[in-house]
Every structure is written in structure tokens, then in C-alpha cells.
């Protein structure tokens, strides 16, 4: 009794608060004064408190040790709105989840369906007036999202709810009770006639109130129980629970299991592997390592859609996608293409046939109005080392939301993570929605954002075969063979674009690269591109989509030639990570060309003398450049030198035949570093003889005890002598 008095006092306080709030918010709708509202709240508490109980769900791990895959909703006593929490929250704290129940009879209690499978429920109990009654679920109301629990013994002193006949009230209000931290708070709230809304998208009328509340009419008579925040104004739902359609609760687990089996029919467990990354690429497949277990969705023609958002670089490293049949037989799938606009790619079984037991995914064709306020499933699929784990959850679809491009997407909570994928499934077992990353075509700098993609668009993605030619796997050799058209470029600033009056040719101000050098004998030279022209796009000959040649990578290099002699204090990693004085041949637009591949036939568009031009070109291989040039390392003097490649010669104004090797790496404290040699200085002579390549350099220092180098640092030259006991014959490591 003590407790009750406390809760009533709290209820009165809460009423006052809400009365005031309602007053300001719905002054036009409410003729009641604050004092009158408070009185009404007190009356409602007195009238309905004896009909409400606390229902406690205690969760447990299932037989496989899995925690409950359930998200519960509770009303926040602070803000009054619904919040969601995972059932693990309660399991880990060893506290039960407390739900509000409405007594329909001395033994039967109605509450919001937690959609929790029996295997995760340790116990259910109902508490009223401090007395606990064990209970179990008996009936479900799928459309309303409700469940009926029944106690073993009748609840003493309970006053079952009585519902008024007469349909939908004009000005409904709702009465609620919240339990949190052992306190009970109740209140009354409502927007009156404003609670009734119309869904333009789905053509449905509904009541928009709050979940888990008792809806009352003007005479304070109970009309119905709103278990979801939105209740359709249908024949059944906005009526006393006795009019609702129910199903036996025992069927629930079976229904979930059946859905999980249906999903399993179109899910393909796969193993995907990426080749090891090149040294400067920091990204990896879904934030993990270089190999991963993933899931795909079967399509017609033996194809499989994998909803993994790989970058072009990652796709280039994709070397294997493999399916392991239940009998252990492995099948290698071939790559078909990367979806043009969404982060997904398609692979195919070699014979064009799906394995036995797997059927193509059906994509949902139901219209939003057919789905809303109905039951749907959120299914999470995990691939644990080739073993599929599929978990379905039921939920009442409350609304649709605007997604990419104005399309409507069902508001299902989808969770995704490494080696897992979460989809929405319609009651007929067809795929309703999946979360995909939208590939950013506008900017290469911002990260991809994820959107729920639903049925019709999914079907289009899966079947249209509109692929992005930049996102394809390559052999390791191909990945290291960079393609180009033979130009050096710089970024066109937007101011310059306006001044040159070429903005009309550009999609964005930042698009376009100004050609600063055209190498002779290259595709660009052949097509007549000249210095000062502005490159716009490259389009693979067979594709409709032109790729913007916008800036990417290394253009703002800030290499400084002036550093002190005592810079041994920097770690040697600093030297290998900093940018070169010359433009990186593998960066910028060459990276874009390289993704299309050497030998690709493309159409390049550019602006010359304010006229837009186009020409077909075949992408050529970049000559050997600094990153892959032959190097020669000598451990005794602690120095690696590198051939002077075309771009290095251009930068240093070295003729093609001028002798010289460039210092690429030095080891602190070793003789070369002590002698004051520095990275990117050029050695032209060794012991009086010109050296033209790293190989010649290696040969020239072999076996010598006295080394005399002629060294150039921009204009300054000097002679460096190193005395050694002997320089061993180091095998020059050749870069791949």
C-alpha cells in the first residue's frame, strides 16, 4: 500500500506536467483548463490503475548459447517517448524487462508483443499489488502487435478493463503507466482530433498516439489498447481487443523457423579473398583482413549478388569468390561485374546454374499500402566460417520512409556488420529491403552513405547488369601495370575554369585537369592533345557512363628541399611515407585509367581552344616509373638507389641519356647517411665513371673500398667519398 500511495503522488505530479504541456501545444483543440486536466488525470488513475499490471520477461541464452535477438521498446519516463533497447541489455544486467499489461480478465493480460522466441524466455510473471503470478504466452495478435499472457491463478483484486462500444471517438486521449526503476508514473495525453492522420503514400488512415497506451474517449471510457504508436483505423484494430484476430502463441516459433528456412533457400554462403594490399593502400574489405566469409543472394542464371561495398582498389584485389557445398565440394565463382551505383557486385556459378537447394531470390513486388501496418521480418544472416546462421525477427511495419532518389523504403531496423548482412523480408518470403552503400559519383573524397534499397530497385540492381568498368578484379601483374594516355596534368581551379570560359563543359567546378605535359609517342600525343588543353572525361567504349577526370591524390605535394643535416631525428618511416618532389605517376588521373586497364578502348573528352573534342584511344602502359623502377640496395653503406625514370628526369631536367641514379632510401647512421647523402639526391658518377642505372651503380660499387660519388642536389653539386673495408656484392632486389 505504501508503494501505491507513492506512485499515485508521482502520477499527480506527472499529470500536472503534461497538462501544462498539452495546454500550450493543443490550446485550440482543448477546451479544458489545466486544473480540469489534472482532475481528469486523477480520475483516470483511480479508474484504470487497478486494471494495469507489470509483466516481467526474464531472458536467457538459447541452447546454442546465443543471446536473445530481440529489441524491446520501453517508454522513457524522462521524455515520454518510446526508446529501443536490445534484450542483451537486460540479460547482461540480470534484470527482467518490465512491460505494462492490461487485464482483460482475471487471468488474461494483454501487452505489446516482444516478438521473442520461447527459447530465449526464462520466465514470465505478472505482478499486481506486490503479488507475483507465473504466466505464459497464449495468444498473439499479429496485426496489432500484441500478445496475451495467462497467469496460472486468477489475479486477486484485479479489475479487468471494460471497453465502451460505439467505435472511434472524436477526441481520443491516451492514458499510460510507465514503470522504471521500481517507480510507477502515469499520465494522460492526447492530441484529440489531431491524432487522426492520413498516409498519402499508402492511402491509409491511422491513429497516431503512443505505443502501450490505453485510448479513452471524451467520457473517459476505454476504447482500445494501442500497442503500437500508429494504429490503423480499420474495422478491427481500433476496437476492443475482443474483436481482434488472434493466433495461438505456440505457432510463433514455428513461423519464425519457417521464415528462416525460406530465407536459407536463396542465401549463398561464400568465401571471398583479396590479394595482399599494395603498401600505400590502407583500406580493407569491410574493415577486416584480406579474406572474409560473406553472403550473397542467388539470382537467375546462376548469378549471386554480394552486397559488399568494395572500392575500386579493393575490387582490383578481389582474387577469389568460392562456394562450399554441404558435401564439402568447392566451386569457384566468376566475377560478372560491380553494380554501377550501389556497393554490390555480382558473381556467377561457372555452369550458370545455382547449386541444388538454392533458388533465385524473389524480390518483393507488394506495394507500400499492402505492407504497412502488417507483419514483416527482419532477418540477419551471418556466415561463420562457411556455416550460415539465419535469425528472423518479426515486426509490425509502421511506416515507409523516403530513401535515395525519393523512393520509399520500409522502416525496418536492419543491422549489418562484418560477415553478416541483414535484410527485410515480406510475409510471402520475398526480399523486401537490404541496406546498400550508394557509390558516390559526385565526390571521391566523401565516404559512401548507406541506404535501404527495396524491392523494385533491388530487382533492377540485380538484373539490369549496369556495371561500372572501374570496379573490376585484376591480376597482380595488371594491378602493378598502370595505364595512362601520356600526359601530366594539374588541377584546374574553378577561378581558372571561369576565366578560360570552360565551365560549361564541366559538371562541377572542380572537374577538369589542365594538361601540363604531353609525352611524345603516347595515345594523347596521337590524338592531338596539347599543353593547356583541359581533360574532361574518359568513357570506356562499350559503356554509356563517362568517368570524370577529376583530381584525385597527389597534387598538393609539399616536398621541401631545405632540411637540416641533423634530420636523423626523424624516423626512417617518415622518409618512406612522404611524397616525392615529382608527381606520383600512379596517382591522379593515371589511377583512373589504370582501373580501366591497359589496352582498354576508351573515348577521352577534352577541351581545346574552347571547343569540346573527343577521340578514341587505347590505354597504354605507363613506362617504368619511380614506384616500380629497378632499385639497388647496398647494406654496407646503407643506401638504396633507383633508376631515374621518365617523370624523375622530367622533374630534374635530365635528358634521356644523362647519367644518374636517384637516392631512394638511406639508413640512419650508416656510411651513406653519415657522409651527408640525402633522399632524392642524384648520384651521377661513381669513382669517376658515369652511372646510368641502379644496376650499373650496383656493379660500380661492387668490391670497391673507396667510393667517390658525384652528387647533385638541384643546382648544388658535391663529391662524397666513403671508405669501407669492403663492399659486399648485394643482390639488387628487383621490385615487382
Amino acid at each position, binding site marked *: 500500500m505504501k508503494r501505491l500511495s507513492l506512485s499515485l503522488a508521482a502520477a499527480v505530479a506527472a499529470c500536472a506536467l503534461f497538462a501544462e504541456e498539452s495546454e500550450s501545444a493543443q490550446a485550440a483543440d482543448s477546451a479544458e483548463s489545466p486544473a480540469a486536466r489534472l482532475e481528469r488525470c486523477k480520475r483516470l488513475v483511480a479508474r484504470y490503475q487497478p486494471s494495469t499490471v507489470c509483466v516481467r520477461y526474464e531472458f536467457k541464452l538459447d541452447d546454442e548459447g546465443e543471446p536473445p535477438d530481440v529489441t524491446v521498446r520501453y517508454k522513457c519516463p524522462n521524455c515520454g517517448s518510446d526508446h529501443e533497447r536490445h534484450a542483451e541489455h537486460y540479460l547482461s544486467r540480470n534484470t527482467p524487462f518490465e512491460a505494462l499489461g492490461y487485464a482483460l480478465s482475471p487471468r488474461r493480460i494483454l501487452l505489446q508483443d516482444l516478438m521473442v522466441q520461447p527459447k530465449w524466455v526464462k520466465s514470465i510473471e505478472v505482478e499486481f499489488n506486490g503479488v507475483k503470478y507465473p504466466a505464459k504466452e497464449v495468444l498473439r495478435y499479429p496485426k496489432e502487435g500484441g500478445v496475451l499472457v495467462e497467469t496460472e491463478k486468477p489475479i486477486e483484486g484485479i479489475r479487468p478493463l471494460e471497453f465502451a462500444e460505439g467505435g472511434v471517438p472524436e477526441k481520443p486521449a491516451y492514458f499510460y503507466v510507465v514503470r522504471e526503476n521500481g517507480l510507477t508514473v502515469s499520465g494522460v495525453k492526447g492530441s484529440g482530433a489531431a491524432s487522426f492522420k492520413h498516409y498519402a503514400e499508402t492511402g491509409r488512415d491511422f491513429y497516431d498516439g503512443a505505443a502501450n497506451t490505453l485510448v479513452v474517449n471524451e467520457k473517459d471510457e476505454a476504447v482500445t489498447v494501442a500497442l503500437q504508436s500508429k494504429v490503423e483505423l480499420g474495422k478491427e484494430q481500433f476496437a476492443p481487443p475482443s474483436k481482434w484476430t488472434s493466433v495461438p502463441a505456440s505457432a510463433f516459433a514455428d513461423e519464425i523457423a519457417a521464415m528462416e528456412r525460406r530465407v536459407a533457400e536463396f542465401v549463398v554462403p561464400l568465401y571471398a579473398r583479396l590479394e595482399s594490399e599494395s603498401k600505400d593502400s590502407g583500406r580493407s574489405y569491410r574493415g577486416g583482413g584480406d579474406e572474409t566469409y560473406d553472403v550473397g543472394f542467388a539470382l537467375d542464371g546462376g548469378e549471386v549478388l554480394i552486397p559488399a561495398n568494395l572500392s575500386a582498389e579493393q575490387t582490383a584485389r578481389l582474387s577469389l569468390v568460392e562456394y562450399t557445398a554441404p558435401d564439402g565440394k568447392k566451386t569457384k565463382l566468376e566475377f560478372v561485374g560491380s553494380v554501377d551505383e550501389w556497393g554490390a557486385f555480382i558473381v556467377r556459378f561457372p555452369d550458370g546454374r545455382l547449386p541444388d537447394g538454392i533458388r533465385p531470390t524473389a524480390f518483393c513486388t507488394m506495394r507500400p499500402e499492402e505492407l504497412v501496418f502488417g507483419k514483416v521480418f527482419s532477418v540477419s544472416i551471418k556466415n561463420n566460417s562457411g556455416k550460415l546462421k539465419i535469425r528472423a525477427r518479426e515486426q509490425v511495419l509502421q511506416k515507409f520512409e523516403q530513401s535515395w532518389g525519393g523512393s520509399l523504403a520500409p522502416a525496418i531496423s536492419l543491422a549489418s556488420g562484418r560477415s553478416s548482412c541483414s535484410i527485410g523480408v515480406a510475409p510471402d518470403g520475398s526480399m523486401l529491403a537490404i541496406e546498400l552503400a550508394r557509390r558516390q559519383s559526385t565526390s571521391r573524397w566523401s565516404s559512401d552513405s548507406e541506404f535501404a534499397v527495396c524491392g523494385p530497385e533491388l530487382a533492377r540492381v540485380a538484373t539490369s547488369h549496369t556495371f561500372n568498368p572501374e570496379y573490376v578484379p585484376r591480376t597482380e601483374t595488371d594491378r602493378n601495370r598502370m595505364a595512362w594516355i601520356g600526359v601530366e596534368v594539374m588541377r584546374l*581551379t574553378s577561378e*581558372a575554369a571561369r*576565366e578560360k570560359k570552360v565551365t560549361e563543359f564541366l559538371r562541377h567546378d572542380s572537374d577538369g585537369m589542365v594538361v601540363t*605535359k604531353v609525352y611524345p609517342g603516347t595515345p594523347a600525343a596521337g590524338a592531338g592533345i596539347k599543353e593547356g588543353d583541359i581533360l574532361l572525361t574518359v568513357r570506356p567504349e562499350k559503356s554509356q557512363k563517362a568517368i570524370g577526370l577529376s583530381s584525385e591524390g597527389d597534387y598538393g605535394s609539399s616536398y621541401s628541399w631545405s632540411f637540416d643535416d641533423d634530420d636523423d631525428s626523424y624516423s626512417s618511416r617518415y622518409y618512406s611515407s612522404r611524397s616525392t618532389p615529382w608527381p606520383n605517376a600512379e596517382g591522379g588521373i593515371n589511377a583512373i585509367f589504370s582501373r580501366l586497364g591497359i589496352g582498354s578502348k576508351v573515348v577521352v573528352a577534352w577541351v581545346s581552344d574552347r571547343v569540346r573534342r573527343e577521340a578514341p584511344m587505347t590505354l597504354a602502359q605507363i613506362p617504368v616509373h619511380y614506384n616500380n623502377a629497378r632499385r639497388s640496395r647496398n647494406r654496407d653503406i646503407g643506401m638504396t638507389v633507383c633508376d631515374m625514370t621518365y617523370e624523375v628526369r622530367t622533374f630534374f631536367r635530365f635528358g634521356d641519356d644523362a647519367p644518374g641514379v636517384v637516392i631512394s632510401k638511406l639508413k640512419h647512421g650508416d*656510411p651513406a647517411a653519415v657522409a*651527408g647523402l640525402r633522399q632524392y639526391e642524384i648520384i651521377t658518377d661513381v669513382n669517376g665513371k658515369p652511372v646510368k642505372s641502379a644496376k650499373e651503380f650496383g656493379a660500380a660499387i661492387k668490391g670497391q673500398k673507396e667510393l667517390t660519388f658525384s652528387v647533385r642536389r638541384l*643546382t*648544388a653539386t658535391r663529391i662524397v*667519398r666513403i*671508405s669501407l673495408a669492403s663492399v659486399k656484392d648485394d643482390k639488387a632486389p628487383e621490385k615487382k
Partner: protein
Amino acid sequence: MTYDMRRLAPAVLACALAVCGCTTPDFRGTVSEAKDAVFPSLVYIRVVIKDLEGGKDEKAQVSGSGVIISSDGELITNHHVVDKATDIRCQLPDGSSYTAKVLGQDKDIDIALLKLERPDGAPPLPAAKLSGRRAEIGEVVLAMGAPWGLARSVSMGIISCNDRYLEGAGKYTLWYQTDAAISPGNSGGPLVDTDGMVIGINARGVSYGDQAFTIPSAVIIEALPRLREKGVADWSWFGLDLQPLNDFQHNISFKAEEGVIVSGTEPGSPARKAGFMPNDRIVSVDGAKVTAKNWEDLPALERRLGRLPFNKPVAFGVNRDGKDLAISVAPTEKGKVEGEEKAFERWGFTAKEINRFDVPELSFFAPDGGVFISAILWDGNADNCDFRRNDIIQSIDGKPVKTVEQLSAMYDEAMKNIETKSKMTVDILRRGRKTQLVLNYLEDTEKELP
């Protein structure tokens, strides 16, 4: 700071006296006499300079020190004190003050010769004497000048090193290093020995350090006649880059007892044309043996080569790969060591011609010369259009730019047409890479409110 300096000066002196007093009984008298010999010739110099470093044509005031070396009013100071001066005022310790004009100056040795402008028949001035002898390490010396603008200041120390080679601080000078207190404002002031002779001109300090560097008088005495007659030091130029036989710091040794190593030759230089090769060892010049064992031996040799007359062949004895050969080279005039400079305020930058001695890195990228941005006006038009210091201007609106004069003509034209055109496309070379920027100079960023 002023307070501290005043208080500390006597304390330092007292300290020094206490230490040295026991070995030199009349030390106080000696120091006093030395001071008296030079102090009346000490000059406090206030200079108004043309300041282009802010990206616009401004004036700035600097101050320095000097010392009178002739009774008719010749004085010496540092080149960097009077560089780009438009007005020079000098004050003597007796309070009299005069304007002065520059007779001659040289950036390489950082020395300027000035003359006080006095009416005809003015009485002779007290002149200090320069001593060309090499001071000994440990000698007591007095530094005189105007540290932090505090005129008529004297401090004392010793010669800490008498043959300091400073890389990048003028190849003709082997410096004195002293621990006498020398601060900004001391520049151009004398370093005086206990005989009252000027043994050098104080010119440099180290940042956050207590050591300073002084140009030995010998270097100045050698240069004075030319500065007086021609206004310049008139160095000869061979274009030879030299390095000594030994470089301890980098553990480099050429295993030879005599000669000096040719580390390289400058592009287009007489030495390169004459066929000098890197790693040649010069053993004699006009028959006289030369040797630079260490870096400290180089300045004297550079001075000697720089003093040889222009266009007169010089016979070098050279050892190349163990074989002796003779190379004859006629040096040319070294000429200017700094390019023309001008501020273009509306554009928002100062442009300077590339001079190989001034900005070797830029001359590497523009071997045929050109113009670069030497200063950017803060928040000016160039600043706002992403121009940077050291950008080499190759062309404007497609018209090549090679000299400040050309640029100046373009600027005048641009200002004339500013009502109709206020943008230009500029091709620049930044750190060796071509870039194209557009300079929008519509806004008059320096416009003052009415």
C-alpha cells in the same frame, strides 16, 4: 629588458675583472684605453629602408652600428644595415648627427662603406684604425654598438674561435667567433682588441645562442679600395664549386696532401666551358700551390680566386684521376648577386628576378632566369588567389615574363584598364611543377577608408 641590461652590464664587467685582475694588474687601464681609442668613432645608425617584404612598397626603420675609419667621415657598417636604404642618419657619441650616403657595398662580405655628409671644411673626426692581423683565440675583445637600439654600448668577451667557417654565410669570409654580448643592433659595430684597434665588424649571431660572429678586418681592408672606387667589391667568377680534402663531419677524406677538390661547376660558367670536371683536384693557380685541407681553408682561397682580374686567363694545375693537366680559365665579372625587385600592390605581391647567387633552387627550375614572387601581401589579391612565395611567374595571359621590367609594364597596363579587366591567368612553376592560377585583382585591398 632595458632595465636588465643596465643592471647586468656592470655586474658582468665586475665578474670579468675579478677573474682577470690577478693575472693582469693593470687590466682596468688597458680596457679603458682600448675603449677610449675607438669609442669616439662609434656611430649609431638609423636607417629608413624600402621594404618590399610585405608584398607592397613600404618603408621601414632599422638601426645598426658603424665605426668611422677616416677623419673626413668615412665609416663602415654591414651591408645588411643599409641594404635598400632611402635615408641614413648617423649619431656620434658626442651627440652630433649627420646624414650619410653609401659609397660602396658588397653582399658577399656583408660590408658597406658610408660617408657622413658634412659641410666643407668641417673639423676632422676621430677615426678608428683597422687591424688586419689575425686575432688570437682567448684574446680579450670589446664589442661596441647599439644592441637593441641602445646606442653607445660596450660589452666584453674573448675571441672564442678565430677561424670559424660558416656554411651559407658568404664564401669569402672566415669568421671570428666571440662571446662578447652582441645583439640585434650591434650589426656593423666594431670588435676592438686591447690595443684599441678594430679587428673586425660584428655581423651575425646564433639564434638562442650566446655566440656571435665578426668579419675580420683583413677581409674589409682588402675590399675597401674597390668599394671606395667602384662602389662594389667586384669579385671574379669562375663558376667553380670547391670542397676541401677532408670533411670531418661527413667522414669524407680524399687521401691527398695538397690541392682542393672541384665538386662541380655551375651551368654556363667559365669553369664548365674550360672543361673542369667534378672530382678534379686543383693543385696550383698560376703556378702557386693551393691547398684546402678543411673547410676553414676555403674562404682565403675563394677570396684569392675572386680577386683575380676579369677576362685574364688563369692557369690551373689540375690532377684528374692521378694525371696532371693544365686548364686555363679566364674568369668573368661575378656581377649582381641579387635580382631586381618590385612590389605590385594591387596584385598583392612583390616580384623579384631570379639570380643564381640569390635563389639557387629557383634558378634550377628557371635556368634562363625569370621572375618569382618574393613576398605576398597578407590578405591581398594574390594571397586570396592561392599564390605563394617562391612561385615562379612564367607567363601572364599567355605572354612570357622574364624580367621585372616586363612585369612592371604589364602592371601599368593592367592598372590603366582596371575598369574593364581585372583578372589574369598566370602560369606559375611551384616547386618544379607547373600550375595555372587566376589572379583576380578587382578589389583594392589596400584602400583606406575615407
